[in-house]
């Protein structure tokens, strides 16, 4: 059961965006921005408020890749695997991270909730390929070595 504050926040978001079906996506985006993920309870709550079925709200939320139903780590690392990054070798960066963080294709967040690893189709920073973002900040021309030392630095900051 979520804390009441979550529902209050959601009410405020709905109030701001508007109580119509067409605002469903912006509302989910705002919730995700506030909590880094979309708690399923809140999705049901929003569906109820917008007067649409839970199934419909879920079908929309699950369709878009950006929405996550699981809590993310403190640092969300997104490795760009767009064409330009791919041909400038972004995969070795992803592989190095997957191994270093002990993650897999199914497991995206470390047990200590510090790191979440994702790929993204294209950040549009192709001139800087290969690019990686950490919580939205773009790191240009990465290599596996530079990436791992960045991870190490973030780990130290949180000790």
């Amino acid at each position, binding site marked *: 059961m979520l804390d009441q504050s979550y529902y209050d926040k959601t009410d405020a978001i709905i109030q701001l965006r508007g109580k119509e079906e*067409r*605002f469903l996506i912006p509302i989910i985006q705002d919730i995700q921005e506030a909590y880094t993920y979309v708690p399923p309870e809140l999705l049901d709550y929003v569906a109820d408020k917008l007067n649409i079925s839970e199934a419909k709200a879920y079908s929309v939320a699950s369709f*878009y890749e950006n929405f996550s139903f699981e809590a993310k780590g403190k640092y969300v690392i997104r490795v760009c695997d767009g064409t*330009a990054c791919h041909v400038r070798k972004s995969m070795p960066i992803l592989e190095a991270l997957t191994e270093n963080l002990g993650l897999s294709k199914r497991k995206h967040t470390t047990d200590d909730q510090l790191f979440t690893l994702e790929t993204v*189709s*294209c950040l549009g920073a192709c001139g*800087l390929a290969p690019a990686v973002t950490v919580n939205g900040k773009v790191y240009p021309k990465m290599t596996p070595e530079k990436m791992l030392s960045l991870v190490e630095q973030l780990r130290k900051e949180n000790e």
Partner: protein
Amino acid sequence: MRLENRTQLDMLREDCVRRRNAETRRILVCGGTGCLAGGSQQIFEKMKELTAAYCGNHDIQVEFGEEIAHTGVKKSGCHGFCEMGPLVRIEPFNYLYLKTNLEDCEEIFQTSVLAGKPVERLMYKQDDKVYQTEEEIPFYARQTRLVLKNCGHIDAEHIEEALAVGDYQSFEKALFEMPPEEVIRIISDSNLRGRGGAGFPTGRKWTQVAGQKEKTRYVVCNGDEGDPGAFMDRSVMEGDPHRMIEGMMIAAYAVQAKEGYIYVRAEYPLAVKRLEIAIEQAEHLGLLGDNILGTDFSFHLHINRGAGAFVCGEGSALTASIEGKRGMPRVKPPRTVEQGLFGKPTVLNNVETYANVPMIIKNGADWYKSIGLATSPGTKAFALTGNVNNTGLIEVPMGITLREIIYDIGGGIKDGKKFKAVQIGGPSGGCLTEDDLDCSMDFDSLKKIGAMIGSGGLVVMDDSTCMVEVARFFMNFTQRESCGKCVPCREGTKRMLEIMERIVHGEGQMSDLDELRELADMIENTALCGLGKGAPKPVISALNGFGDEFREHIEEKRCRTHVCQDLLTYKINPDKCKGCSKCARNCPADAITGELKHPYVIDAMKCLKCGACMEGCPFGAIYQE
């Protein structure tokens, strides 16, 4: 201040021009996504600090000898030369500094801003020649920047700057001097074709919407630039958002729409922010809203952020997404011009198309047709990326050859390697090979050779790129992005991907190639939307251009570029091996044997191809084949 009539707008514009001209020194720090990543924000802050220290208050007067000058520090949009960022431009000298650091600011300020002299060490160099100004650098000199004219030269977060360089002039002209039919006629005459991919005539689209019985209409901008390797639209939205908004306003006036939507992909937060600021400032001046400039024309503009679905770049999927639904394409007809957003007639164009509109209205259809080719007039912006020396955003007249783009503007292939192919048009496009280097870059010529301009991504690949693997990469992309609504795309791309994976893992058979072609044919002819229809193109064009590489992967189990890990064999060069046994100890599979002080050997049957031996060899004796 709200502008109530045309005179007030003209007065404001004159005021903006005056203020801009009063700035006798302008420091423009690139604030595009690329340069920000390189630390341009700190450079911007530092420049403001330096200016303030010298002038007491930034953009107030500084004395340069006898001349009294005003210095403006601006955070501009993308200059396009992203490879060389962060970029700093000093006007009126037009010096362009590349790869600037925080430490360089002081010198730039002292030497260029105060003394008007160049700092040569930070300038572009090629073949021992120093290029002082942006206009001289070959990367820019060979371009025709019309749509991107202001990108990098104005502060994108202040509407005054946009007004000073002429934004909203064409809208004003259309609103007060032309009936809507006249606007549509000019756009039709200009033969402007949609920059989003297929090149559909924009004027025809507008004519069809204007002719609908239903009077509630919408104008929608497709800013869901999802093609990996493309970022033209991002740069326009970040660098000159008002130009695109003006294009939408002209479209709205032409078809008498009252509401407009801009759909921007979620991966472009800076573009969203700049557009929000631009809309707010235009609303504040009364350029957007009710009764614009005292006329009967009202127009409201909204921004919708995407949520990570490539298919939303397709028209009917995009409008579904704005309506709050799953972004899935629907069967057409009815087409978007008849029943688009909320079931109403809708003009849907992409960012670059709208950005072309104001200059056509301003200069006329004949002027526009004089640029590029008769069948594809105007310019096209391309994102030039991959293994090329100068990556970045370029704008060239339609009809230019690929060779000119790669060698004259792009400066050739990186690290002196050999050109192999260019991927054009993203996941729905194809590969152009060496034979196509002299092909004209326009909608029709490219279509003839089985490629397409698409949104304009050009990813250059050198001879270290495995074309089979790249084809697999695109298949994987479209497969993942397939929305699942129609069977040919959902199942067909899955099967094609499985075959491609088999081939890169060395488990392919020659019959797979026929099967790929058969599946491709089926998908192209029966899929519902552009994403599906285009999905097999990268595979088929790679197969046509690089059939030998496919055959090598299948028959010889060999990848000539050493990209496909499973096809590699590790070998020890007996001349270099000193027999230290380190590799044998590192090998997790006990695949390496030998006698101390004599060359070791790898048993290919036991080898896991992990690479541990090669990494650890102190003599560089182990190689891949």
